[in-house]
């Protein structure tokens, strides 16, 4: 009955778990729809940024680097402020859909080493997000390049602008990892996205308001300073000399991601599936 094509007896490995997670993501139409919408939006944003830059110049010649900066800045603002919701939803859904459908029991039976499953999902969420954001920067830039070419404006990436792109990509990847972690912790799409919105959108705004409070204001200042979204803004800025510096900021961003993932692993390994 089962001997027709006997299964080759391979071991369970992290690479295979990650491959399985990639197939899960790739075989859902909703994934491509969500990421496709993001890219379409970014394409539109690139065109819009270029047009606005040229219009804002009021007929004066714009240096190529300045033209590129204005587009990349807008695209980065999209990444850090407007579109994190897309990555948050994508990464959280990769986890919470499994709990909603009961598939998590199949997943943990096929791969009972739960730490590897959590890391595998985080890795796939991060890579897919970062590739999508990279493609987004490229698409937005190419669209802007087209507009500038038509309008006779140059387009040249400067060193800081290139770092800003890298920052945006890494920021989005870290946000995806954190959202996947929140998905594991809450086991609910609404819960994970709500926690993400509170953490990445509402809390920074609240912290900024509370910085002025006597006594505790300084605490909120430092929390805000090293909060993931603040780090993200620094990472994607095309301006130099913003603390705590590109490399350190990126590292701190991923320390946050690692911390949330570690919390998720601790909970998932103790909890019944």
């Amino acid at each position, binding site marked *: 009955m089962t001997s027709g094509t006997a*299964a080759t007896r391979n071991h369970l490995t992290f690479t295979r778990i990650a491959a399985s997670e990639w197939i899960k993501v790739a075989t859902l139409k909703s994934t491509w729809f969500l990421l496709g919408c993001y890219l379409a939006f970014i394409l539109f944003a690139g065109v819009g940024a270029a047009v606005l830059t040229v219009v804002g110049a009021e007929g004066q010649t714009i240096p190529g680097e300045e033209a590129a900066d204005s587009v990349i800045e807008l695209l980065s603002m999209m990444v850090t402020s407007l579109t994190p919701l897309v990555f948050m939803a994508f990464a959280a859904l990769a986890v919470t859909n499994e709990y909603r459908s009961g598939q998590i029991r199949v997943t943990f039976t096929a791969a009972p080493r739960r730490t590897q499953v959590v890391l595998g999902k985080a890795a796939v969420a991060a890579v897919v997000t970062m590739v999508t954001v990279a493609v987004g920067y490229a698409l937005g830039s190419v669209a802007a390049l087209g507009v500038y070419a038509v309008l006779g404006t140059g387009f040249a990436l400067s060193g800081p602008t290139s770092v800003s792109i890298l920052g945006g990509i890494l920021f989005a990847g870290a946000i995806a990892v954190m959202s996947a972690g929140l998905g594991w912790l809450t086991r609910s799409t609404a819960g994970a996205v709500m926690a993400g919105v509170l953490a990445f959108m509402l809390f920074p705004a609240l912290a900024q308001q509370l910085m002025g409070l006597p006594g505790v204001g300084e605490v909120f200042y430092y929390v805000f300073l090293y909060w993931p979204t603040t780090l993200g803004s620094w990472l994607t800025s095309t301006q130099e000399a913003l603390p705590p510096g590109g490399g350190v900021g990126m590292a701190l961003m991923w320390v946050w991601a690692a911390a949330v993932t570690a919390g998720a692993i601790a909970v998932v390994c103790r909890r019944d599936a």
Partner: protein
Amino acid sequence: MIEAVGLSKRYGEKLAVDGISFTVRPGAVTGFLGPNGAGKSTTMRMVVGLDAPTAGSVRVNGKAYRHHAAPLHEVGILLDAKAVHPNRSARDHLRCVAATHGISPKRVDAVIETTGLGPVAGKRAGQFSLGMGQRLGIATALLGDPETLILDEPVNGLDPEGVIWVRTLARQLGAQGRTVFISSHLMSEMSQTADHLIVLGRGRVLADKPMSQFIAESSGTVTRVRSPQASELAQALAGPQTSITVLEPGLLRVTGVDSAQIGDLAAAHGWALHENTPLQKSLEDAFLALTEGAVEYRSASMSEAGRQS
């Protein structure tokens, strides 16, 4: 082989599994029988580490399930036919599971063919009937060509052809020397499939014996006896192997003694017998009698239902 020792699981106040020990041996089909809520599914989840035991331990093929290098090749399990992403096709679902162990697409195709899923393999699993879902669950369990197969209520929702298919598959796998552990709450189904029986009730093992022994012990005759001297007859029949129930004045239900012995005894004493009818006890009766005090969820009787309405 599955070996459980002192296995317990507590959910808050409720003790779902209460210190059970059992062994499921290879080369046979072991039925895991019990009423709803007896703890069968919880036990199966603990076998593959989905739920952590509150106490005790369980090993599969000599190790805790999670310590196996290639778990899917050790155990294939069907727990819940609906535990599939509804928007993913059956083939893609199997590909996801196969990828964890580098199992080839050919093997995926083979289990699709074995389970009769071919015509619907490209359909979204959310569109499947319960029966098709069961087939997909069984296909998932077979993917790794495992040494041990655990199937929780596999015939739920299957049509008669599907039921016979599962029964035949289980027996074939057992005959190949594999460990096959199947749960059900239907004694009739188990009697046609299993070689060995473990009966669970309220989280405890009520019986653990070969099916043949269970049948032999359970199918003893019951005799309905009607006599004007019923009380004298009951006294004369009383013994350690005999069970006598007075159904009404003059009417007895006797087990442990056959109707010929009862007739001979009555004749020897000159007592009149108005009825001496042997009644065959079914396996279902034996199962119900065994689990009588261990039923978690009991239906209201028709009369009670009538009063409530």
